[in-house]
């Protein structure tokens, strides 16, 4: 058996029982790798459960800085008997298995092509501790200590992290240090350390920050000037609203009076949440709600109201696996069509697709400008994979000269000097009318906001021509949006390839690695990362310039592809769907496999309606 040998480039996966205290120990491991200057990207793959069900924590370690999942596991820390068989099966040939050897396991439970590293964790704990909870918790710290020795992690680095974590709690710090040492000592005295997998000090982390997407998006809402947030708890979006509250406590209290420059309400349901957002935005505040797919389903009626009455509103959809309750704690990109065409009647909405926490921050702040400018709902399409995982990304940036774009708002002065006000009057031929905030002027500028059809002066009208006039203006407005939303980003801009790839959101990091791997195989593809809907003309050009386009997404029905075909009129045979939707984040290996197979198949038999170059 030849064991895998790799330095700063492998995958460690922890299989644990939910609620056993493993989360903080596993995070300690990931942070230690980062402290060594080696890029690492951890992902929680967790159940909808408080205690008892299986949970995993997968750490991608990559000197080159790949942040996506690679696929496959090189070292499995198998701490959950419930999932032992599948966990062992997932290890790469030549990989490693770290397990609790307190009880003897049948030889059939092991693999010949995997190096087994048994540490009697339970026994060590039982000897060292009398308290049941301590026995449970320190088991996790002991395996981190052992991993340190096995992978050659600098013990000083781990000790420093423990010191920071338990600053001012001397007793806790000491007991953690002791547990780490027990694990380390056991590994050093029983195995050849390090094993084939090693962490060596590097500088691939640099200035990068380690941040969760939901927290970043919430901070973007602070920077974007949101003052009203209304939400209803739902995984995986709750931590966004909670982070907003945390950030507001830091940044948004009046230094003299201590009073809040924000209002956060935990509403009774998602319908009330979006209603509050609409009410606040109608009244001139920047407001948002954070939810997930089921919440969007509930908000449909109000979203149509905001579209038709033209009220700015920002909605964060941290997507999870659907349909119905679906997979509440698993990731997907399956709310694309739900949000793009939310509500009954003819509607279209602006969607933004951040790729990581940094972009979640930026797009969050931008969403408030877009909503005000376009006077319409704007969706920030986050995903569980981005929202609930910490990701290494470039430091957040803010230009202090940036001003909020409050859009077309008629002021008291404008009304006073007699500017014509028609709430739905297209004065600039961009489809965007002026609005007034309630209470602006005693005599002028008031109007009635309604979900019913109206004329250009907001007067109720069921007349066909008035209705059509209004609906056409809304389409013009959507055209205007095309040029305001974030442009797509072209990667591998060689135009040498006949093959193009379109992707978006959390697929990005795995895609970057896949593009690189495909190139190594001699398969060059041009790639376009879509960042918003409506699609800009650059998308149409990209599709026109390539013979075949792979559209990579994380849902069953190829929803982005559907939207591209529907909105841009592309020939469906030209767009090949590459779909990963089992609820786990997409991997680079999956993409490489699908695209190489796809290219091979296309080379053999080009799809109908297209010609191979």
């Amino acid at each position, binding site marked *: 058996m030849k064991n895998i040998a790799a330095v700063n480039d492998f995958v460690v996966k922890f299989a644990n029982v939910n609620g056993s205290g493993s989360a903080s120990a596993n995070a300690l491991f990931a942070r230690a790798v980062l402290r060594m200057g080696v890029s690492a990207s951890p992902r929680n793959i967790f159940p909808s459960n408080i205690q008892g069900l299986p949970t995993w924590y997968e750490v991608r370690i990559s000197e080159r800085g790949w942040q996506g999942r690679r696929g496959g596991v090189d070292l499995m820390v198998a701490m959950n008997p419930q999932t032992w068989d599948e966990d062992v099966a997932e290890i790469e040939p030549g990989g490693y298995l770290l397990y609790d050897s307190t009880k003897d396991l049948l030889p059939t439970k092991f693999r010949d092509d995997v190096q087994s590293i048994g540490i009697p964790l339970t026994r060590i704990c039982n000897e060292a501790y009398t308290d049941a909870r301590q026995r449970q918790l320190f088991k996790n710290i002991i395996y981190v200590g052992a991993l340190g020795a096995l992978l050659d992690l600098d013990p000083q680095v781990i000790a420093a992290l423990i010191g920071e974590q338990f600053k001012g709690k001397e007793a806790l710090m000491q007991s953690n240090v002791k547990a780490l040492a027990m694990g380390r000592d056991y590994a050093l005295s029983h195995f050849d350390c390090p094993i084939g997998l090693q962490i060596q000090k590097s500088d691939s982390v640099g200035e990068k920050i380690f941040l969760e997407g939901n927290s970043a998006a919430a901070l973007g809402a602070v920077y974007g000037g949101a003052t009203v947030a209304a939400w209803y708890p739902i995984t995986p979006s709750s931590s966004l609203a909670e982070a907003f509250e945390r950030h507001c406590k830091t940044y948004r209290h009046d230094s003299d009076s201590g009073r809040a420059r924000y209002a956060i309400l935990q509403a009774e349901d998602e319908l009330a949440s979006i*209603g509050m957002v609409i009410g606040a935005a109608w009244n001139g505040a920047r407001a948002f709600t954070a939810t997930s797919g089921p919440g969007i389903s509930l908000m449909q*009626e109000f979203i149509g109201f905001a579209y038709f009455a033209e009220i700015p509103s920002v909605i964060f959809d941290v997507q999870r696996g659907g349909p119905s309750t679906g997979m509440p704690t698993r990731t997907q990109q399956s709310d694309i069509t739900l949000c793009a065409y939310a509500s009954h009647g003819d509607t279209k909405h602006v969607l933004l697709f951040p790729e990581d926490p940094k972009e979640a921050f930026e797009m969050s702040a931008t969403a408030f400008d877009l909503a005000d400018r376009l006077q319409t709902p704007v969706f920030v399409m986050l995903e569980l994979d981005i929202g609930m995982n910490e990701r290494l990304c470039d430091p957040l940036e803010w230009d202090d000269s940036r001003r909020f774009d409050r859009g077309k708002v008629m002021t008291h002065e404008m009304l006073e000097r007699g500017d014509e006000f028609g709430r739905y009057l297209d004065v600039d031929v961009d489809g965007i009318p002026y609005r007034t905030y309630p209470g602006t002027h005693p005599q002028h500028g008031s109007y009635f906001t309604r979900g019913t059809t109206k004329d250009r002066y907001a007067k109720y009208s069921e007349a066909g021509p008035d209705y059509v006039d209004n609906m056409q203006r809304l389409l013009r407005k959507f055209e205007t949006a095309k040029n305001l939303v974030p442009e797509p980003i072209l990667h591998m801009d060689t135009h040498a390839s006949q093959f193009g790839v379109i992707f978006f959101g959390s697929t990005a990091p795995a895609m970057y690695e896949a593009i690189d791997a495909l190139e190594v195989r001699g398969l060059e593809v041009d790639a376009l990362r879509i960042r918003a809907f409506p699609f800009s003309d650059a998308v149409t050009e990209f599709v026109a310039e390539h013979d075949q386009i792979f559209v990579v997404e994380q849902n069953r029905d190829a929803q982005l592809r559907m939207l591209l075909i529907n909105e841009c009129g592309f020939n469906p045979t030209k767009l090949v769907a590459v779909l990963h939707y089992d609820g786990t984040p997409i991997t680079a290996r999956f993409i490489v496999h699908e695209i190489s197979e796809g290219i091979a198949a296309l080379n053999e038999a080009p799809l109908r309606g297209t010609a191979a170059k």
Partner: protein
Amino acid sequence: MTYIAKPKLAHPGIPTNELGYTRRYYEGAVSTLCAGCGHDSISAGIVQAFFELNIEPHRVAKLSGIGCSSKTPTYFLGSSHGLNSVHGRMPSVLTGANLANRELIYLGVSGDGDSASIGLGQFAHCLRRGVNMVYIVENNGVYGLTKGQFSATADKGSKSKRGITNADSNIDMVGLALQLGATFVARSFSGDKAQLVPLLKAAVEHKGAAFIDVISPCVAFNNHAGSTKSYDYVREHNEVLNQLDFMPRREPITADYEAGEVEEIRQHDGQVLRLRKVSKDYDPHDRIAAMNILQARAAEGEIVTGLIYFDREAEDLHSNLNTVEFPLNTLGEEELCPGSAALDLFNADLQ
């Protein structure tokens, strides 16, 4: 009510209020409800209340849901911003609007279908939160726009126009409001403007969640024998607890009252409510007693009206949230955006 447009010119001698506005200035578009509809009387009451309170109409935001009652904000305060939201969801929109600008006066207008059925949840929660508003339910016990179905406030045993007897228990909005923590709770009758207008004025001045249930007969579908929301039935069964006089500013008591018959209630802003007690033993500051009397009278088929409950120490949502005294919608980059220096520190913490 009528298809004849209101004349634009008014008699030069028509009375004006302290702001120099005529009552006409507080009106809105011509009503499209049925002739004799109770809702139009309530609209007229609102016009009178705001006229007499000397409130600039543009300082009022009027919000509603869906239904006959929810159409009425078009018919009063034409210079106010209005919002006709979706069915049963006025309370959430009003709550959000109130959070954005605490300085406006919020008038929520709803009906029994809108608030007791589809919107029961939002009705409950906005009262719980103490949103500073006047929440009016124009209660006719029937779905008018869809032609006569029972609503959830229709009394058990009452008959529909088509002769069907209602088998379901009714929802008492006043009882719910008391239980849910509304700090001003009243019931009135659209046919008794003398009672309704002072209640509306007091509710507007109340800082907190004020709820008024106004029985408002539907002349088209619920004004027949066998209905418990008809003009005749309500007149016969109306048990008036007290009569409210509203003093815009502290004025001396000119009328003679027997001792113990009048109570003066000082408002936050120094204005005074004068409550003439009809039922001598009734204390409108005792929430538990209010709930008891309501239940006891209802069991006897009586409809209790008047100021049912009033919390002198009411607090509103903004005080609970400790928000700044200025409207949130007036804050700009300076007050809201922490800037790049703060972001540098934020980044440093995560490196």
